[in-house]
Each structure stands twice: as C-alpha cells, then as structure tokens.
C-alpha cells in the first residue's frame, strides 16, 4: 500500500511536470501559474470555501465509483446520476414548497438520492437483464440524462429569460445554508467525508464489502463463495447512484439554487479520476477529491492573474488519470 501511494504520488507529480512544460511552452512561468492556482484554491478563507464546494460532488460521486470499481463494475454513469439527482431535488423543491428548511432540504436531498439511485438502477437492470456491458449502458444513459434535464427545463420546469435553459429560483427554504461564515461553503463537504468514511467501513468491515472485493478480484471465486453477482451489482450501483444523486442535489441546493442545463457536465468522468487517484479506497478519495477540487477552484484565478487557460486543469486531470492507471497496473 505504501509503495502504491508513492507511485500514485509520482503519477500526480509527473502530470504536474507535464503541465508545467505546457505552461512554459505557451510563454508563461509555470511557478507563477502554480502559485496562482494555490492562492486561488487556498489563499483566503473564501478561496478555500470555493475549493471545498468544488470538492463535494467529486467526493460523493467518486466514493461511489470507487465502491463499484472495487467490485469490478465499471460504472461511468455518475454524470447522468448527478444530473437526474439534481432534477429530482429541483422538482421536489419546486413542486412541494414548504416553510421549514429542514423538511424542504431533507425532502429535496432525499428525492435527489432516490432519483440518482433509480437512474443507476436502470443501468443495472439493462446491464444484468440484457447482458450489455455496463460501460456502454452507463455512458449512453449519461447522454440521455443530460437531454432529459434539458427537456424538463425546456418544458414544465423551465423559467424563461436567461440565455440558456434554467429553472426558476428555488424557494429559499430549500437553499443549503453556508454555516461557515468565513469560508462561504455549504456543509456538503461534511456529508461527503461522512459518506466516504461510511463506505470505507462498509468495504472493509462488512460482509457486503467483503463480497464486493471478492467479486472484483474473481467472478469465479464469487460464484464459488455462494455470492450473488446480480445482488452485488444492484447493491453497489444503487449506493453509488444514490451518492451521485445526492451530489447533484447538493449542487442544485447549495451552489446554483436552481436547476441549470449542463450543470453536471464532466462531473462523471472526474468522479472516475478521483476514485482512481484514491486507489479505489473510499477514505483516500477524500484527498484525491480535494486535489481536483482545489485545482478547479485555483484554475480560474490562474487564468485571470497569469493568463494561462483554465483548461490546463483538464490536461492535469487526464494525465494524472493516465499516469495513475499505469502506476496501479500490475507489476
């Protein structure tokens, strides 16, 4: 494990070095750019708050993805599950406005988790029922989910006026508060940390987690051990879907306070990146998600201050994933 952690660290380092070369190539000073990222990500309480908010969806969805990957289920559908979760939260908040914030938020987040789980369940049903590879199912459902959200926003859920599709502002009771005044962050990060802690416990201390690990290591051994692969797939997918849906709900209630088209764009693949970078260990997904979240938060100030395009972040993420894959490969 130590050596794996070290190799993953090297993977990140290598990706950052490649990014530095790209920055230098475009005529900027890499150190200056990285300093801008650092200050944008953690230079002030507010910056740190932004980082934490950005970290939250990656952490929630990424822990769920890690759980699925452990069981050998390549679930790349977090994006669709986040989208549908956001749709669920917004619908609940708009359709059933209540006075009490506790009830409003509770109902909306519950709707988000259920909607995300349902979307993941649809993928599980097609995968198990019709033997279609889960990567293809979850991938195609991502596109369909995104279009479903757009359809909803173009129809009953939409509000006219903006240049893009969006819902009306949600009732105030459903807004996630920002209890840490200095940071300006919503409490989603706490939910994320709790979820990854819970999943870690589940993975290492429960029979369900043991079964997932056996199934991920060898399908034949799982059958021999009397484990039901369909049941495991259902369990892992529903859990991951619920967490991704929750992430979508928190984005909607905590950041946008309305449903916007494409709010989930790219989240799903980043959830995969974070899961890999965390070596598929839910607790280690916390620092991995924080790394990506801070990178994203810092990239905007890098673009502003130094003039290096913020899409550099995607380069770092892609390279980190590739190097992490190579580092985690056997031998």
């Amino acid at each position, binding site marked *: 494990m130590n050596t794996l952690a070290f190799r993953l660290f090297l993977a990140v380092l290598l990706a950052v070095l490649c990014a530095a070369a*790209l920055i230098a*190539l*475009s*005529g900027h000073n890499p150190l200056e750019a990285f300093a801008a990222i650092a200050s944008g990500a953690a230079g002030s309480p507010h910056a740190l708050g932004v980082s934490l908010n950005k970290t939250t969806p990656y952490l929630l969805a990424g822990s769920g993805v890690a759980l699925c990957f452990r069981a050998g289920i*390549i679930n*790349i559908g977090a994006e669709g599950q986040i989208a549908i979760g956001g749709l669920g939260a917004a619908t609940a908040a708009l359709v059933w406005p209540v006075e009490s914030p506790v009830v409003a938020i509770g109902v909306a987040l519950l709707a988000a988790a259920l909607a995300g789980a349902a979307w993941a369940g649809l993928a599980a049903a*097609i995968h198990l*029922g*019709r*033997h*279609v590879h889960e*990567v*293809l*199912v979850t*991938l*195609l*459902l991502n*596109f*369909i989910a995104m*279009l*479903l959200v*757009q*359809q909803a926003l*173009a*129809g009953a859920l939409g509000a006219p006026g903006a240049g893009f599709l969006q819902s009306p502002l949600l009732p105030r009771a459903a807004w996630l508060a920002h209890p840490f005044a200095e940071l300006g962050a919503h409490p989603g990060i706490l939910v994320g940390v709790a979820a990854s802690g819970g999943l870690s416990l589940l993975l290492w201390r429960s029979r369900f987690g043991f079964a997932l690990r056996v199934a991920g290591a060898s399908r034949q051994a799982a059958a021999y051990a009397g484990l039901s692969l369909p049941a495991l797939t259902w369990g892992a997918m529903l859990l991951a879907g619920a967490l991704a849906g929750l992430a979508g709900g928190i984005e909607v209630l905590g950041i946008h306070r309305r449903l916007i088209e494409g709010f989930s764009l790219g989240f799903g*693949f*980043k959830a*995969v*990146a974070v899961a*890999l970078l965390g070596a598929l260990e839910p607790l280690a997904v916390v620092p991995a998600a924080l790394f990506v979240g801070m990178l994203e938060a810092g990239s905007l100030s890098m*673009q502003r201050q130094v*003039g*290096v*395009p913020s*899409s*550099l*972040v*995607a*380069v*770092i*993420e*892609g*390279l980190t*994933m*590739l190097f992490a*894959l*190579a580092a*985690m*490969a*056997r031998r």
Partner: protein
Amino acid sequence: MDFLAATIRIATPLLLAALGGILSERAGVFAVGLEGMMLAGAFAAAVATWASGSDLVGIGAALAGGAVIGLLVALVAVRFRADQMVTGLSANIFAAGVTSYLLRANGGRAPSIHLDPLANWPVPWLADLPVLGPLLFNHPPLTYLAAAGCVALTWWLGRTQAGLTLRATGENPEAVFASGGNPARTRLLAVIACGAVAGLGGAVLSLQQVGTFTDNMTGGRGYLALASLIVGRWTPAGAAAACLVFGAADAFGLRLQTFGLPASSYVLQMAPYVIALAVLAGLGRSAKLPAAIGQSLE
C-alpha cells in the same frame, strides 16, 4: 433527398471513427478513447490547415493528432496493462483539455479560425445520374474516403496476413505468440492506427463540415461511433449500417424541427442513444465480442 444527404453527412465522421474502433477492438482493445482521438484529429486538422493554408497538411495533421492519443492509450492499456475502458476515458479527458488549452496557448485567447469547408467533388458522369447522382456521387472528399475505407478494411481484415494476425490477436494472443507473432506490438499498432483513422473522423467535422474548431466539438460522437461498431458486430459493413441508422435518426430530428412539429428537439436528440441502447439490449448475449478483448497480455 435532403434527408438522405443529411443522413450521410452525419454518418460520415461516425463511420471513420467506427472503422478505427474496429481495428482496435478486433485486436482486443476496447475503443473507448475514440472520442478523444476524434477531438484531437479535429483540432489538429483545423489548426494545421489554418496555419499552412493546405487541406492536405490538415488531413495529415488529423491522422497524426488522433495517432498521438492512440499512442497514449496503447502505452497505458497495452504496455502497462491498465483497464482499457478507464484508460480510454482518461485519454478523452486529456484530449478535451489539451485541445482547449493549446487553442488558447498563444496569448490566452482562442484565435478565430475560419476555413472554407472542403468542397464537394462530384464524380464525373456519375454525379449527373438522376436521383442517385446527387445522393451518392456528389460529396466532399472525406466522405468518399470513409466509404472506400469501409471496403478496404473489410478486404484487409479478411484477406491479408496482417489482418488475420490482427483478428487472431483479439481472439487468442497466445496463439499469435506461439505462431511467431508479437501480439503486444500488433495491439500497439492497432490502437495507434485506430487513433489515426478516428482522427480523420474528427477532421470531417472541423475541415469538411464546420470549418473551424470549437472546444469539445465532437460532443459525444466518439461514444456513438463506439456503439455503432458494437451494434454492427465489429464488421465495417455492419458499423456503416449502424452509423447510417444513427445519422438517419439525427437527420429525422432535424427535419421535424424545421417543420416545427410539436415533438421536442431534446427528446429527438435522444434518439441515437436510445436506439443504440435498445439495439444493444436486443442483441443481449448474442453480441459476441472478440474473445480476448479487454484482457491484458501475459
């Protein structure tokens, strides 16, 4: 007539990418990286044509751009034996980032690239045929290339030693090794070639259809190409048929919109994805993958 022309137009980039994907998957490597390969090809084609003023240079750059992503996938998935699917996804993220970054690398703002889309090459005589002429024999060059590629790939896979070796590598790499071949090398080359061909598919978008490059302009077409080659059972002809079906679904949606029919455009845009999912679900277990796909070597 317009409808059929639109179908072919939409199917062309998909088909080129799918042909590349067939190379990769028949050699035993999942082609999830098609999206990134296409995007890199589209980017390289647009920038190189803009900088050089030559379409031919642009097409060469598309081949090279796609091949670079192919090389990355090949190194990580074949050389380091990482999970092929996740490697493909990572390459897609990288391609999206690096094309967007490089576009702005000079001064932080994207240059405005305006290219004249590749002109139609009417085939002498044939293009004047009634009905069939405009439909089949009056297209821009890369469309012909896609059709020719489909025929050439069928021949190459079935009739040449290299094609036989590639297919054998996807079925039983150990047997290839035992008969004196080098399965790892075959896979590496297949994935790089996949990248190059898919890069051409990207060039169709940027050079032939739009005339510029915008961030993430492939918009999921690589994934659709992947679905079409599976629906088409890993044969060029089957993939072509699937691409045409997806193209037709898309074209149909566009038509309905222009007629202002009540069906919402977003629901219609779902059609290709829903069709792909339905066909895959319909095929179920009978979709027989190359036996050794996804397995790493040794």
